[in-house]
């Protein structure tokens, strides 16, 4: 990292990355608008991974039902901004509401369960994820709240007055398509989230989380109110999930319980693990990689199979899942700290290996 040690070199690096990020959607849209959408979903996954990283990476609590909070945020947005209840609140009102509701769910789940040992907690969160999904699937009776398996459609996009994020628009001679406009607002929110995460990590709370992760008994002996601090991690992670869910609902315009299955929780977990639990930049890298690589595979493996065998033998979806599984196993076996490990984690694992 000598290259970045010089202050000016560092700022040049930041500027280059900023230019790349600003130019990215136009480069992608020249390949196809589908890729801009993929980039948007990747940003959502980064967002989710950052949220899960607070719970798993910072505080060391394995949450296997994280997608439930994403679902809660998405449904909160969908119910408050769609013809379903004929409510059309603006997005800057709903996103905080979604975060709040998800946060409440986090507290609801965390309060009784956070005193459990790590692996019990994992299973309980997994059960919680399933419970939320089953309720979403069935709460169409007696009052139609979630519209059951059909889901909720025609969800309002983000908009400021008449400026809607779902329409094409020409500003200063440059054509901005809907996905490109979303890209910029998502990117802005993501940068905010990254800053929040970095600040959190080195705050008093962040250090308390780290202490709990390293040794809960010792942390308690040092005067940390472990239950409350763990609950805070849960609630904060859940809020991130809630915001991401709201954004997902707005971008897609349609949500159903199908989008919030266990596999999604595991996918987000894979991103956190692959990148490096506890390291914000590692998690960003993991989420970007696991969002783009499967899509690349979809566009390369499928034609390759057709070319070699004349037909598609393995569906891309299956390849994607097999990759997730392999990534989880191989990472744990050969690089348990992730691609960009956090310094503390590295030390911890080295110590354990002795």
């Amino acid at each position, binding site marked *: 990292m000598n290259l970045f040690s010089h202050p000016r070199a560092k700022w040049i690096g930041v500027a280059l990355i900023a230019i790349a990020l600003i130019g990215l959607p136009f480069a992608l849209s020249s390949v196809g608008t589908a890729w801009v959408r993929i980039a948007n979903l990747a940003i959502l996954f980064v967002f989710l991974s950052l949220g899960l990283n607070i719970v798993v990476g910072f505080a060391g609590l394995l949450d296997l039902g994280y997608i439930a909070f994403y679902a809660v945020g998405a449904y909160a947005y969908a119910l408050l901004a769609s013809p379903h209840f004929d409510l059309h609140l603006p997005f800057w009102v709903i996103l905080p509401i979604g975060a709040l509701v998800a946060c409440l769910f986090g507290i609801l789940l965390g309060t009784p369960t956070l005193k459990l040992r790590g692996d*019990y907690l994992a299973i309980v969160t997994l059960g919680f994820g399933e419970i939320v999904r089953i309720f979403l699937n069935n709460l169409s009776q007696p009052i139609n709240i979630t519209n059951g398996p059909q889901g909720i459609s025609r969800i309002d996009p983000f908009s400021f007055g008449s400026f809607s994020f779902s329409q094409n628009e020409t500003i200063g001679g440059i054509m901005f398509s809907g996905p490109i406009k979303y890209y910029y607002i998502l990117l802005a929110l993501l940068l905010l989230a990254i800053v929040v995460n970095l600040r959190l990590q080195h705050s008093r709370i962040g250090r308390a989380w780290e202490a709990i992760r390293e040794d809960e008994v010792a942390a308690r002996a040092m005067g940390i109110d472990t239950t409350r601090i763990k609950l805070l991690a849960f609630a904060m992670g859940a809020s991130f999930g809630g915001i991401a869910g709201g954004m997902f609902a707005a971008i897609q315009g349609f949500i159903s319980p199908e989008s919030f299955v266990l596999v999604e929780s595991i996918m987000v977990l894979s991103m956190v693990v692959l990148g490096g639990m506890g390291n914000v930049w590692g998690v960003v890298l993991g989420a970007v990689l696991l969002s783009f690589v499967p899509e690349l595979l979809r566009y390369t493996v499928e034609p390759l199979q057709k070319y070699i065998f004349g037909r598609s033998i393995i569906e891309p979806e299956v390849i994607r899942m097999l990759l997730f599984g392999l990534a989880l196993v191989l990472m744990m076996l050969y690089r348990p700290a992730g691609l960009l490990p956090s310094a503390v984690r590295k030390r911890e694992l080295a110590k354990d290996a002795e």
Partner: protein
Amino acid sequence: MDIFLQQVINGLTLGSVYAIVALGYTMVYGIIQLINFAHGEVVMLGAMVAFSVIGALAGTTLPPLVIVLAGVLAAIPACMLVGYAMERVAYRPLRGAPRLAPLITAIGISIILQHVAMLVWSRSPLAFPQIIPLVRFYIGGAIITGVQIAIILTSFMMMGALTLLVYRTKLGIAMRATSQNPHVAGLMGIDIDRIISFTFIVGAALAAVAGVMVGTYYGIAHYSMGSLLGMKAFSAAVLGGIGNLAGAMLGGILLGVVEALGAGYIGDLTNNVFGSNYQDVFAFMVLIAVLVFRPSGLLGERVGDRA
């Protein structure tokens, strides 16, 4: 028809399957404190292998019992092999690593097994061929089928056999010693690695039989049947007190009965606001409730935090 008795019978059937699967979880947990997340997939593989064999033999003139037995006998070694390989490849290298690490590999293994099964057997479920004649018995206004009786009897026999194995044989003593303290057990001349492998193999064999039973009961087997079943069985193991054999058996049966009764009565109790489609919620509600009020389960011992 007596709904109560009927639901108890149905619950007992499923509950004994849960108990058998739960034994696999509880043995592995007891010995290396790992939630073997992929155990449910072993159950699924057992069902798939057995159904393939049964399907292939269904056209022949062999008696149905022989066909089913052939299926079970094919499934058991296949599952044992998977169980052994799983421990060897994914868990053994991580012994002594932070607790989350093997749990995450277990999730990875579970995903891999599920999707490999999907590649091998495709997305569509395998159906159980109509070879077993439907036998029904009437007791007190409820119906019990021949398959249900067979499932309950087989499960209880397997539970008995496992209890004998663990408490009456040398191997069982070694298993219990390892679960109490692996280091000291090693000093006493017990080959820890072998005992752990053996535990996985026994658990996988039980899972294979459980897979055939649950597949036969529902009439189908498919690649994703393992995860929900596994989660419920794990809940059962926790309910009884994880690491405790009798607890897993009790927990499994209790969970099956609670689930069946819940599904049978929830409509009446809530004026049909909630229907039996909430059946799957019960297992998890029970799990959460048990962990909150009695974290060590019904028969488990209180375990303190490890410093």
